[in-house]
């Protein structure tokens, strides 16, 4: 289903989704990030890309698995599966959209993660094509994506200035459009031509190239013991920015948070974890197989461009560029791949 939606009617459509929780990018605290939209009038799709990725809607920072307590000395567990309202997220950039199927694969590989899917199944992603790159660090096209890629999105919107071209990609997307059908107009030939032109222009913007991804995978495999990693990670501070902001990083930690030590009452909680943290691979013995920053950088890059490819036949990077832009010390995954490729 393809429709035209005028800028003014956007709010009508959003208001029609009143049985859903609607999120859209908002510029607050000097950053764009997803925020709850209370009314259609609040929506603003002039954003670049959000600082946090859309993954947190299915894989939140904190997920309670179950509660536990002791009753008469016997441990009792109470499961706590999330039951969210249907959620529609607007303004998802295609790179983030492409991240979601990769996360879906992970959480559905050997074990269907009920917590992830309880949220994921309620999620409708409304994408917005990028008419131009937001930063010099956008490289979606270098990893097989495009500024108007539909993969992972339920709807793709394209900004045509005074109006949007809206395409229902999945049944879920079409259903969401149906809900606000009065707001939409039919697509004219001129509209169609303009969309194609905008898309073509967006593709034509130069992005930093990565070269042959197979060759990169091979180069990574061969450089496992290379001193290059330590050199490239020389200024890494070991924070979690690159992975926490990444639309496809999905590592987690599980802890028991005890509320009442006397009654043994508490919760088992999943939180984000991060391969860049020193304790990520720390063994009880004190041995750490990835004890230095170089090996951790290698892990992050290898996971995205080698191991994930081996397991899932695709890169685990969608070229959003967040890890480059937000790195406090300028570690640049493209430059890293270039150097590995050259070695």
């Amino acid at each position, binding site marked *: 289903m393809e429709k035209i939606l005028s800028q003014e009617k956007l709010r009508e459509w959003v208001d029609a989704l009143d049985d859903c929780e609607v999120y859209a990018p908002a510029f607050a605290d000097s950053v764009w990030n997803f925020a709850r939209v209370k009314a259609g009038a609040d929506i603003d799709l002039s954003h670049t890309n959000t600082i946090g990725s859309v993954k947190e809607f299915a894989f939140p920072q904190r997920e309670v698995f179950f509660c536990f307590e002791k009753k008469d000395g016997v441990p009792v567990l109470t499961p706590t599966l999330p039951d969210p309202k249907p959620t529609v997220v607007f303004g998802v950039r295609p790179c983030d959209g492409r991240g979601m199927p990769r996360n879906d694969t992970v959480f559905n590989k050997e074990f269907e993660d009920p917590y992830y899917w309880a949220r994921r199944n309620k999620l409708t992603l409304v994408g917005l094509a990028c008419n131009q790159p937001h930063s010099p660090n956008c490289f979606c096209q270098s990893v097989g994506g495009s500024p108007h890629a539909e993969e992972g999105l339920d709807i793709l919107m394209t900004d045509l200035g005074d109006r949007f071209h809206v395409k229902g990609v999945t049944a879920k997307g079409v259903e969401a459009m149906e809900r606000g059908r009065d707001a939409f107009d039919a697509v004219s030939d001129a509209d169609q031509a303009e969309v194609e032109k905008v898309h073509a222009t967006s593709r034509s913007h130069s992005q930093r190239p990565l070269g042959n991804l197979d060759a990169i995978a091979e180069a990574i495999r061969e450089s496992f013991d290379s001193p290059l990693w330590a050199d490239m990670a020389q200024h890494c501070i070991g924070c979690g920015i690159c992975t926490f902001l990444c639309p496809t990083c999905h590592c987690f930690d599980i802890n028991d*948070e005890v*509320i009442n030590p006397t009654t043994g009452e*508490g*919760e088992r909680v999943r939180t984000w974890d991060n391969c860049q943290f020193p304790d990520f691979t720390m063994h009880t013995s004190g041995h750490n197989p990835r004890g230095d920053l170089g090996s951790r950088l290698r892990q992050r890059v290898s996971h995205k461009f080698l191991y994930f490819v081996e397991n899932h036949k695709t890169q685990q990077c969608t070229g959003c560029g967040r890890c480059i832009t937000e790195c406090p010390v300028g570690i640049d995954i493209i430059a890293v791949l270039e150097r590995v490729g050259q070695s």
Partner: protein
Amino acid sequence: MSNPSKTTEVQTFEPRIVAFLCKWCSSAGSDLAGVSRIQYSANATPITIPCSGSVSPMYILSAFNKGADGVLISGCHPGDCHYMEGNYLARRKLYLVKELLQFIGLESERFRMSWVSAAEGVKFAEVVDEFVEDLRVLGPQNRLKAER
């Protein structure tokens, strides 16, 4: 929630206070209150520590995190520290903690410090009672309490 029920809630609200008392002065002062049979609110549960100077800011944050409505730290009067200087160190450190808590908007009445000597059983009881009264007005502490 309707207003009347809220009022009832305020009236029945019993603040929970963690009171860190130095062993030599304030804990002894509270003992004197006991020996003198001075009656005061039971809302403050004491933890006796060697000296107010041994209080780590973590104790205070942790107590609030675990749901304390108020935290009291009580030590020897300046010049009277059994360990000579511990209370001076405490005063500087806890001044900063207090300022920080106020800065982030925790109600300023929730963190209190007092000097209570071993001879001041009456004062100890007053300090606790006043604290409890002030906290009753404020109601439960939800700002730093773990939302679990």
